[in-house]
């Protein structure tokens, strides 16, 4: 068994607390976090986090496919404005 498996995923404790609090309140809020290194856990699915990118909090709506990845992966630190061309946006 590899070390990372027996240790379990890393999550900053304040992220767990904030997520639990938000889930209890039942409000559809953006949970502001600074911890880009925390792993996305199954209990975060359905919540929206505002993940800090060094300048602002990027809204990250957690879905099942994102479990096991880090929050920082969804909050890029560099901005790129491409061309709109035929790109589409879907309202969920």
């Amino acid at each position: 068994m590899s070390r990372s498996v027996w240790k379990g995923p890393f999550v900053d404790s304040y992220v767990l607390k904030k997520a639990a609090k938000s889930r209890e309140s039942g409000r559809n809020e953006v949970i502001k976090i600074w911890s880009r290194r925390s792993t996305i856990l199954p209990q975060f699915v359905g919540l929206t986090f505002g993940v800090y990118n060094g300048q602002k909090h990027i809204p990250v709506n957690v879905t099942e496919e994102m479990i096991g990845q880090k929050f920082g992966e969804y909050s890029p630190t560099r901005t790129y404005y491409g061309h709109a061309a035929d790109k589409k946006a879907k309202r969920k």
Partner: protein
Amino acid sequence: MPGPDRDSMICVGAIAGAFGVRGEVRVKSFCSEPEDIAAYAPLSTEDGAHSWTLKISRAVKGGLACWLGGVKTREQAEALRGVRLFAPRDRLPALPDDEFYHADLIGLDVLDTGGARLGRLHAIHDHGAGDILEITGPGMRTPLLIPFTREAVPTVDLTARRVIVDPPVEVLGEGRGGDDDEAEE
């Protein structure tokens, strides 16, 4: 930067230079699927003064090697370097409900649920966790980032050219520079 009307032109690519010696050009496609640029041909300059048919021959480093109608020599192809290629908006296929072209959304006025103007839709991002609307406006220290969901964006009215948003309070506070929330514990 106002968004285009339905009859306006949309930039779908640019000519990066000549490719080979037989008059092919290297085209940089801005489409979500690069090969789709051929579906919007004939393409023209923004003012419509010149127009070309386009046929993709193959993918090459840095873009697509294409034949443009009327371009026969490398010199002609080289002369087109830097030309941006436009297609009319009405050539884009229709989309199902709740799906929108970025080109239609960018530039729309953004209002809150009370009817107050927040700003203008400046850009749309997708970092892998759903689309995000970037709204800029007067009095905003940083752009407002709103998830493109039914809860946060209840109304998109393309004919009235406006979007009504109901942003979460945490997001609204950040854009106005008023809420710093608690720091990392």
